[in-house]
């Protein structure tokens, strides 16, 4: 198994700062804006972004969204996917939602998340922020609005996001060859 480091702790910090600045650029006053981290792994990134925005004097509500029951691979895998907590402590109706996930791969999770989100109401606008965008691996016409890093990958590779918030020693993003 080969591992290649894509982002180390310091680079990740710079990337997060840039993503926050881009959010600020597009949202200026953050009126009616909410962040929605996708379970299970996007929530850690969402928390980092939320925290960083706070240090830049921007307060945006943060929620967690689980799309397990809206996935399109139910009964097409051996075991049912395990659901996580959904916590949306605000109304989605009329909001500008920023969906946040760690890795954008086939786009199927994001599709499911859009469905799951709409069961809470009709947002005014939805954007997608991802830390790693795996280029040319999409099964669906889905693109991210804010991207931490573009990576060229193929199906036999995997992107591993290790975050301190998720119980890892250091923030590190890896590209792994599955053999």
């Amino acid at each position, binding site marked *: 198994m080969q591992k290649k480091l894509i982002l180390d702790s310091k680079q990740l910090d710079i990337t997060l700062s840039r993503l926050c600045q881009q959010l600020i650029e597009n949202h200026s006053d953050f009126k009616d804006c909410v962040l929605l981290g996708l379970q299970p792994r996007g929530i850690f990134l969402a928390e980092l972004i939320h925290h960083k925005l706070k240090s830049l004097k921007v307060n945006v509500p943060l929620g967690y969204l689980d799309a397990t*029951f809206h996935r399109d691979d139910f009964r097409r895998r051996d075991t049912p996917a395990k659901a996580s907590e959904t916590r949306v402590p605000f109304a989605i109706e009329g909001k500008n939602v920023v969906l946040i996930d760690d890795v954008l791969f086939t786009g199927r999770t994001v599709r499911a998340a859009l469905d799951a989100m709409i069961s809470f109401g009709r947002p005014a606008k939805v954007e997608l922020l991802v830390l790693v965008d795996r280029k040319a691996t999409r099964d669906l016409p889905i693109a991210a609005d804010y991207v931490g890093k573009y990576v060229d990958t193929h199906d036999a590779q995997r992107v591993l996001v290790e975050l301190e918030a998720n119980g890892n020693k250091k923030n590190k993003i890896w590209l792994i060859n599955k053999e």
Partner: protein
Amino acid sequence: MSKLSQRHLLGIKDITRQDIELIFETADNFKDVINRPIKKVPSLRDITIANVFFENSTRTRLSFELAEKRLSADVINFSSSGSSVKKGETLLDTVNNILAMKVDMVVMRHASAGAPHFLAKHIKANIINAGDGTHEHPTQALLDAFSIREKLGGIEGKKIAIIGDILHSRVALSNIFALKKLGADVMVCGPPTLLPKFISTLGVQIEFEVKKALAWCDVANVLRIQLERQQLKYFPSLREYSLYYGISKKMLDDLKKNIVLMHPGPINRGVELTSDAADSHHSIILDQVQNGVAVRMAVLYLLAGAA
């Protein structure tokens, strides 16, 4: 693992503690789903479920049907009254005919103990037991335990008294299996004629005086007197039963402690519970009903997903 150890849900006896905990965790998520503005998820949209009821039911049947619809399954309902069962069709023939219409899961209630187990040996579809005679009613036990867990924060070490007609109750048996597996202390209480002879072999305490049972327990799960199953006279009169075993609000208030009152329904008001007890702040009877939908969604989801 996020998979149940069984293909069917025939009884609590056959499943493990891990299975029960997985069902609870999944039900937590579904409870969240059914409190959203849009209460429906598409998980089971390519599944057809037959609700086959050979015995009367309101709560269980509505609860299953709602759970199935919230998961986007296609649902057909069958009840034995007004069907060809009256013309002499066998159980296996009836169900095979339903399955020939491409049904994936069967939810069945039957007056004979073991009917769903018999079906499970002969057909391919997943089977969920919605009550078989005086044997088991697994989803009721799961929703009862789920409601206790929600109210008290856990089940391990809690004292639960099951009070009433234990002999004829499938709810009692399934509850005992579920609560023992989850580490609770269980007591059964009722007139000696309505307690099965060998009940203590299940590891439960026995009490004949309802006041002592109430003083002992954290949760009182009160059962209905099942007159329709009683061929003999087990007690002199309903009035006498309610005098010795009926529970009133005053009895609960006098305990000077927090007690949770449950009932699987239908309640015979004035027999096992007075109206003021059933409607008191001790009672979580309507929470049980709400949790029933979430728990049944979890069971359906986990069984269908492992196919």
